């Protein structure tokens, strides 16, 4: 039997979590606010589109996914006060006008013959961007101090990847002609343009690259101090 008085490391040998992470409390909160905003816009759009698509399997898929993204928004809403943001609505906003323009373009199609355009926006542009930003957050933040965010990210990423795969399969089943291939590609190009301008769902720096206006001055300051 092990000696109960023998000292043990507080971390198991296989536990490689380290301090610190890349994000401060404020930076994590800023990103979470943007995540909440885009999840809200997405679940609203999916709900609205249900009535506009004639394909029965797409209707039920949109209805199911609508709730997934609503639940993600709820998780982010609940996280903000835990990150010292007592007025969550202050941070639940688009990172910039370009992402607002992206959402406006994303939600513009209504006609029943535009199912491909609706789904391309969600499953070939927005969901990959969300998965990328969430994965970056998961990799960058401290796995000890920001563990509650990481737990939510795990649930959400599981949903997002499953939903992305399902949506992509629906799209592949819908796209059957050269014209439909061209329509899907055009739509993707159009919306990717907005997204690139926005810098991702959390704005510039969504994937860790520093905003252009900040990175040089930060580096020179550090260099000068040393």
């Amino acid at each position: 039997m092990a000696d109960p008085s023998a000292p043990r490391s507080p971390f198991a040998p296989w536990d490689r979590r380290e301090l610190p992470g890349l994000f401060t409390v404020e930076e994590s909160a800023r990103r979470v606010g943007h995540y909440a905003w885009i999840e809200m816009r997405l679940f609203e759009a999916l709900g609205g589109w249900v009535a506009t698509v004639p394909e029965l399997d797409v209707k039920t898929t949109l209805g199911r996914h609508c709730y997934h993204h609503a639940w993600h928004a709820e998780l982010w809403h609940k996280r903000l006060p835990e990150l010292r943001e007592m007025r969550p609505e202050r941070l639940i906003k688009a990172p910039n006008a370009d992402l607002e323009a992206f959402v406006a373009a994303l939600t513009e199609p209504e006609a029943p013959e535009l199912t491909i355009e609706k789904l391309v926006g969600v499953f070939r542009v927005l969901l990959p961007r969300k998965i990328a930003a969430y994965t970056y957050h998961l990799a960058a933040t401290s796995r000890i101090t920001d563990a509650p965010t990481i737990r939510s990210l795990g649930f959400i990423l599981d949903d997002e990847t499953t939903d992305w795969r399902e949506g992509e399969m629906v799209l592949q089943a819908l796209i059957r002609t050269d014209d439909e291939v061209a329509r899907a590609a055009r739509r993707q190009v159009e919306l990717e343009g907005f997204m690139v301008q926005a810098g991702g769902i959390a704005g510039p720096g969504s994937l860790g690259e520093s905003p252009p206006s900040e990175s040089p001055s930060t580096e020179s300051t550090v260099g000068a101090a040393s």
Partner: protein
Amino acid sequence: MRKSFPAEDLARDGRFRRARMEDRFEDPRNDLAPAGRRGGKLPPDRPDAAHAARQMMHGIFVGEIQALEGAGRTVWDFDDDEAPFALKLDMARQCWDEARHTEISVKLGEWMGTEIGEFAETTFLYQAACNPDPVLRLTGVNRALEGLAIDVFNTMREFGQASGDPVLSFCEDWMLADEVTHVKMGSDWLRRLTEHDPERRQRALEFQRVVDKLFSFRGFRGETDENPIQLARTFRRMAGFDDTEIDEIAAVSEEAVS
């Protein structure tokens, strides 16, 4: 995408057939049906029981699609200041539930021997979900129509039990559980959003009465053997209706016969 989406634009594939509510109500054949094909409670030994049950299931199926569409539009149509975030969360949850019900209804329809488009679709259910006031919309849909769904699912559940169809009774029982939840949502939001606005609450309850009356037309719902759909008092109590409210719906149903 528009903020309000009319019933006539609801997107359907080529199998669906649309009928006007007034045409269905005013169809002179309603008075000419032979005794074996008249409405009334649906015992399995009625000569047209299988046909009537299939027709009912098809009606449930299109009703579920419209309920899904209506909940989805409530998520989209209102800005955050018109409908609180928590209300939209409930409606998103309802979208998922109605999507499942649509899937269940398609499979049950196949199980019972009908197919999509065998019967016509009216859009009155969705029309109730077009009210521009979110409180009236929630009251009309979640208390009146989802309340009707409680009655319908319980009736079909009992029909499944009486006819020895465990698949039908199993599925209806699961959907019944969801509908009780949806009615509770409606009652909860009616109370919360009109806490300081009794006039708006009265308008919402009046809208509910109108919808309840329309769906009791010609004795469709009630508590006698003449009514195809039986008022499910026990499940309505679970969903938060008090006995006075249930008595009122019963009275509305009786009035609607005449």
